């Protein structure tokens, strides 16, 4: 068992999406397990990434041959497979000791997609029905599996994901010859439709306006099910960054359309870690971590700060700035929008000020109701002024902070700010994101 776990956890580690959020469930009286709405990190691995779920492959045997994957058919690696019983029991024994929030189950393709999917479903069914497990389950849909199996799985788990892996059809053809874009997008669209059908209130509170579905006509496959019981945590996907030539703008445009058209909860970005030698793959000295980090920041702006991709890249190249986070990048290109009057500006405008996060903006809006805010007040509110001071107008701030020409501003923003010095950066280094990260317990993206 120890060996199996070593192999199958090791094989799952390149998968980034591990967030246990987006769902919440009370425990049934006297039973085991619930889902905390905010997600909880239980530990942090030696790479600094949060461990929230028991993340394993059911098996690393695989009939496919994706170029970027350690488990591809043509690789000579140690292979193993759990049985559904073993894995269910392991999950429970970890959960009862508070090691984890739940299970994140993925798998190589054992024999064929349907057979694999059936094994996964059996595992999850054991957990829910025999062990009465009420904790979090995230299941990876096996590309090519039968829609009936997909639906069945969706009724048992909190979140499902179908990994896109590569940001374009041509890259997919080149590096994952057994998969096609349709094979991935079709199940995504199905999950979306079933989710929409069975979670009526959730869909009403969506953050982004949903465009009309564009993935072509799906036969309406309506199914009876109690409300709220189909993947209440929604679906997510993962993209590998740096293995193929797509630029940041292309990648984010794809994400934006996935959020809007597929109603995904999350898109995860994973800096490509070379595990195979393959002529089709680039030789990278290091995984592109900074790029991954910038993409996450930009993604954050799309989901919570009401930016659009077009806006973000307006007047600039299709790559994110490496020196500055995307919000500063945008602000530097739009001097006409600043300074922002902290005592007057509406919430959405405040959100666009570099250095002001959601929490700071909310605190400002609340505090200014009972009195006009000065520079010192902002500091007392806990607003980090290091960057914000260049972009706001507030009584008590010195003139010299404002109206700098963009080049000088660039200099000052860069100078003396240790966060912006080139080094291995963590997503959580940026204070404005830190709090929110904690709240959602996002886990994979560091």
């Amino acid at each position, binding site marked *: 068992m120890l060996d199996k776990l070593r192999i199958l956890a090791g094989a799952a580690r390149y998968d980034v999406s591990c967030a246990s959020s987006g769902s919440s469930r009370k425990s049934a009286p006297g039973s085991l397990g619930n889902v905390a709405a905010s997600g909880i990190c239980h*530990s942090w691995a030696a790479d600094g990434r949060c461990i*929230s779920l028991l993340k394993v492959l059911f098996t690393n045997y695989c009939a496919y041959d994706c170029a970027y994957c350690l488990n591809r058919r043509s690789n000579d690696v140690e292979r193993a497979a759990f049985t559904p019983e073993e894995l269910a029991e392991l999950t429970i024994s970890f959960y009862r*000791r508070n090691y984890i929030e739940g299970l994140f189950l993925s798998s190589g393709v054992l024999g064929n997609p349907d057979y694999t999917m059936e094994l996964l479903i059996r595992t999850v069914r054991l957990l829910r029905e025999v062990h009465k497990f009420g904790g979090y389950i995230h299941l990876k849909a096996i590309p090519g599996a039968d829609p009936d199996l997909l639906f069945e799985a969706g009724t048992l788990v909190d979140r499902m994901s179908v990994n896109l892996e590569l940001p374009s059809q041509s890259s997919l053809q080149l590096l994952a010859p057994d998969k096609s874009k349709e094979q991935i997008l079709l199940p995504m669209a199905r999950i979306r439709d079933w989710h929409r059908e069975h979670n009526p209130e959730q869909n009403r509170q969506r953050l982004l306006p949903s465009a009309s579905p564009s993935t072509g006509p799906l036969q309406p496959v309506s199914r009876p099910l109690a409300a709220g019981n189909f993947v209440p945590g929604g679906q997510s996907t993962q993209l590998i960054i740096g293995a193929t030539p797509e630029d940041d703008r292309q990648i984010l445009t794809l994400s934006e359309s996935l959020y809007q058209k597929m109603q995904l909860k999350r898109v995860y970005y994973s800096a490509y870690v070379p595990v195979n030698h393959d002529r089709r793959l680039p030789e990278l000295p290091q995984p592109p971590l900074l790029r991954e980090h910038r993409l996450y920041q930009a993604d954050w702006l799309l989901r919570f700060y009401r930016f659009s991709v077009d806006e973000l890249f307006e007047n600039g190249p299709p790559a994110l700035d490496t020196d500055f986070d995307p919000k500063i990048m945008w602000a530097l290109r739009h001097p006409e929008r600043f300074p922002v009057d902290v005592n007057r500006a509406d919430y959405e405008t405040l959100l666009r000020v570099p250095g002001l996060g959601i929490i700071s903006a909310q605190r400002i809006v609340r505090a200014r109701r009972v009195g006009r805010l000065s520079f010192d007040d902002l500091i007392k*509110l806990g607003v980090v002024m290091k960057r914000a001071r260049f972009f706001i107008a507030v009584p008590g701030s010195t003139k010299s902070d404002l109206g700098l020409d963009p080049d000088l501003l660039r200099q000052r923003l860069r100078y003396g700010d240790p966060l912006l010095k080139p080094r291995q950066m*963590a997503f959580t280094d940026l204070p404005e994101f830190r709090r929110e990260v904690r709240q959602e317990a996002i886990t994979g993206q560091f």
Partner: protein
Amino acid sequence: MNILRYDGSFYSLICVLVPWLRQRYLPDGIARENARQPLLFAGEETAPASSTDLALACSACDPQVFRLPGVSRETWQNAWHAFLSEAPGIEMAVARYLLLAIEKQGRVDSFMADERVRLIQRLAKKVTFERHRFLGLLRFRSIGDNLYYASIKPDHFILPILAPFFVERFADQRWIIHDRRREMAAVYDLRAWTITERAATDLPAASPKEDSTQKLWQCFFDSIAVRERLNLALQQKFIPKKYWSDLTELPGR
């Protein structure tokens, strides 16, 4: 000099304070009488778990019980959480904050730049942050038939706000959460939970399967890290060293 005395519990603190706050006065000082009695009434010994304890625990932070005008639920929670920080002088800080709350008629928490409010909000945040941390970092080990034990050493007295979470999550297992710093324990017996004083000596032995499960977890913990992205500093930022001794896994490698 008016020095109020209370028994160390939040409930008792509020009981002695309320008459003063109603008159809009502050006492000159507040002194803690005896050992920690976090939730229970004065003089009550450690009682076996019963549902009334639970009810008491909840009422201890229910503003409605005291009908203080202007003290909202949020304000009440802040005061309660800040109190659990056990910061020196917290009693008077709570008194000043509540008095201001009455003066501001429900809007006190918007005055975030006022020192009285800032102090309480900051302490409350520290406490709830530590609680959140332990929701994840707390580790149970099996010490008997459906009986689990966890040891923690939190900076603040978080047991009263930590336990309800685990009551909900592990409703079908019996458990003990032992605060080693204070030698207090939260105990849940499938029906109700309570907080008791607990001696350091009676540390329970692990059950037979415990060792192999711990090994499996350590194995998972080591296998899941991507070695190409090794970042021990970041790991330690999230799990400060002071928590390592109570973890099952072994960080820092």
